[in-house]
């Protein structure tokens, strides 16, 4: 009986030590899967109130001051009510509904003044001349290629964005924060990493077994991804995008290199370098914290009740009838 008690005590102590170790920030190498790869698994959120591009008025500073961070977080906590919203404006209608439905976050998850970390000015590089010419011709395409909450018209559902059509926010749009559903689940098995995306649903299955990209004639909304481990970082190379959706003017020539690095027990740093010489005058990089939430993921069956599309198109027909 005594030896049993000692065994229990030793077991409990070992468990407590393991727990303490798990809660400490990483010193050295991150946890590993049973088959020896860096363990990135968990559920994460990338919501943040850090601006995408560096605001002009921080005078080129790379980091916010503590006072600025505190002010931004305070404002995010307090913002969002309908007080002071001018009624009867398009902008007010676009705000849609009460703030309790939104989940933009209230934290400056990185004190950087922009998620864009390269170029050093924190701004997306200028578009190429070719990109500007394509943009001018967008209206001639069979379907709108934008991925935001908007459209180019209301004649047909094809005039609405791929986001409104419940298809995709594009890449790396699908890996970037938006106003809600900023949740991701990473699971691993030997030779594969899967990333489940809550907003619009879908799972990226990324092989890490050394295979190469599929042939260039195969084009996908989310591109084709292959991964590899560089030290403790998962590096994912994605090409083979379709020409049917735009990411800031880029489509089928987009090439992404993503880097997932566990920077602590509760956080992965996600970096993505965006390259397309036909669209951007130089490659650029985003760095977005993915913070562990330990929360469940929920299905976002967008087509289930997309009454909004019906409302937009039928609303336009009624407006046409009302015109003299």
């Amino acid at each position, binding site marked *: 009986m005594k030896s049993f008690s000692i065994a229990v005590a030793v077991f409990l102590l070992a468990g407590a030590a393991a727990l303490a170790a798990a809660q400490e920030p990483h010193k050295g190498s991150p946890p590993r899967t049973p088959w020896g790869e860096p363990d990135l698994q968990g559920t994460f959120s990338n919501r943040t109130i850090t601006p995408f591009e560096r605001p002009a008025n921080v005078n080129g500073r790379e980091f916010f001051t503590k006072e600025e961070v505190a002010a931004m977080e305070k404002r995010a906590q307090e913002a969002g009510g309908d007080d002071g919203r001018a*009624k009867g404006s398009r902008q007010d209608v676009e705000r*849609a509904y009460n703030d*309790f*439905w939104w989940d933009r976050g209230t934290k400056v998850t990185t004190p950087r003044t922009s998620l864009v970390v390269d170029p050093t000015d924190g701004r997306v590089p200028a578009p190429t001349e070719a990109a500007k010419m394509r943009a001018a011709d967008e209206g001639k395409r069979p379907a709108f290629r934008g991925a935001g909450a908007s459209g180019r018209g209301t004649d047909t559902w094809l005039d609405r964005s791929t986001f409104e059509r419940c298809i995709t926010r594009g890449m790396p749009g699908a890996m970037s924060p938006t106003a*809600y559903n900023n949740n991701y689940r990473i699971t691993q098995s030997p030779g594969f990493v899967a990333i489940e995306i809550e907003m619009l649903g879908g799972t990226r299955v990324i092989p890490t077994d050394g295979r190469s990209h599929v042939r260039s004639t195969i084009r996908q909304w989310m591109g084709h991804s292959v991964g590899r481990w560089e030290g403790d970082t998962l590096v994912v190379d994605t090409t083979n995008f379709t020409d049917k959706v735009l990411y800031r003017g880029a489509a089928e020539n987009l090439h992404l290199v993503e880097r997932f690095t566990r920077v602590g027990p509760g956080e992965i740093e996600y970096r993505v370098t965006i390259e397309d010489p036909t669209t951007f005058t130089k490659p650029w990089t985003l760095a977005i914290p993915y913070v562990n939430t330990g929360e469940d993921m929920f299905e976002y069956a967008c087509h289930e*009740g997309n009454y*909004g599309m019906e409302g937009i198109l039928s609303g336009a027909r009624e407006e046409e009838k009302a015109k003299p």
Partner: protein
Amino acid sequence: MSCDRIAAAIAAAVSLAGAPALAHHSFSAEFDSNKPVELKGVVAKVEWINPHTWIHIDVKQPDGTVQRWMIEGGTPNTLLRRGLTRESLPVGTEIVVDGYRAKNGTNRANGRDVTFPGGRKLFMGSSGIGAPQDGKDPTEK
């Protein structure tokens, strides 16, 4: 830099950073900013669906008849994550809707501001884990 100038710089940085992101689809394309509506009714049905929740309410008319309206909210996922379900808004609950009518002329509106008759917001103060707080609800801490 003077204190005033620092404060101004912070305010400017904050205002830029705080620009709101938008919903899954364009609400200004669906609802008419020239047709604001104020509706008081009782919950008849809650469609706890994606991309957006729809709350059906019965609104009593001056002549005693009842009109059914559909009110568009946001994704249920955000509330579900805070422990709220469609059962959190039982059938028969009286609510007040401030919104804009659908452009297609049907009895649909967006739930710009949905409250209980006393002004307390729906879905607030129930469990509220990390819920955005706007300071308007007196029950918020």
